[in-house]
């Protein structure tokens, strides 16, 4: 049943309740997240050419060293959280990783000293905070209904989880900032420092795919 979605399952690593699983899908996701984290660590931020209002010449925007350090750290935290979210097979764990990615995303842009970027990240932060309620709420409801949160056990229990799945999808949409909520997040991508901004995009897109997998499985 589970292998008809994620491909071959190679093995699991049980840490007590927290179960990590290795399938074709999760290995590819994990490797991609790790490679990106390494590249982000190695890359120097680019210098952006910005057109100025009422002037002819353009300004070269440089990311300063102390800004770079905090943003790089948050980007690495984001990458590790994404890699963890790819491997975990526990619903509550996954929701935690999702919120951690949301926090790290705000952290990546919060060091930029620009009005519109800070504004966008504030709005995104509000949505991400509101979205944690449906996210953890649906995890709690699934636990109350079935008595387990393990993604290996849930498909075996013949209960309809349609409502919980819809709430979970709504929570994920708010947390990763896709379709209905993308307006504030797209504004965040105009900040200089491409490798760190790239991490925001990568983490949310990988998490969407993983959520689709989870929603199809349970």
């Amino acid at each position, binding site marked *: 049943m589970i292998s008809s979605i994620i491909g071959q399952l190679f093995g699991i690593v049980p840490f007590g309740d927290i179960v990590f699983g290795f399938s074709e899908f999760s290995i590819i996701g994990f*490797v991609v997240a790790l490679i990106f984290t390494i590249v982000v660590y190695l890359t120097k931020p680019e210098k952006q*050419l910005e057109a100025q209002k009422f002037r*002819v*010449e*353009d300004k*070269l925007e440089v990311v300063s060293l102390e800004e770079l350090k905090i943003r790089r750290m948050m980007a690495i935290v984001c990458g590790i959280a994404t890699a963890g979210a790819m491997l975990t097979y526990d619903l509550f764990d996954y929701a935690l990783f999702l919120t951690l990615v949301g926090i790290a995303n705000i952290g990546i842009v919060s060091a930029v000293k620009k009005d519109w970027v800070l504004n966008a990240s504030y709005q995104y932060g509000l949505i991400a905070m509101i979205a944690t309620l449906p996210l953890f709420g649906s995890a709690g409801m699934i636990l109350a209904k079935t008595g387990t949160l393990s993604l290996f056990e849930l498909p075996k229990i013949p209960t309809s989880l349609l409502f919980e799945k819809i709430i979970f999808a709504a929570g994920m949409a708010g947390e990763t900032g896709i379709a209905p909520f993308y307006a504030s997040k797209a504004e965040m991508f105009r900040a200089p420092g491409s490798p760190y901004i790239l991490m925001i995009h990568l983490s949310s897109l990988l998490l969407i795919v993983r959520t689709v997998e989870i929603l199809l499985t349970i």
Partner: protein
Amino acid sequence: MDEERKCGLYLLIIGLLCTFGIVMFKGMICYLLYVIAVPCLLYGIGSYLIPKTRRKNAGRLPFRGF
């Protein structure tokens, strides 16, 4: 050696190591190594085929006022 060829050299080494790995190993890891090896070899070989740049200010963006 300019920066482009230096990157090319590193990538060529990675590509050749991966090719060596494809010959040595069996199973799923071959696919992974193949996927890494092809683009590395493409850039690595290409960086030694391209001519040296003849631009005066190499790397300047052709954008107004800069």
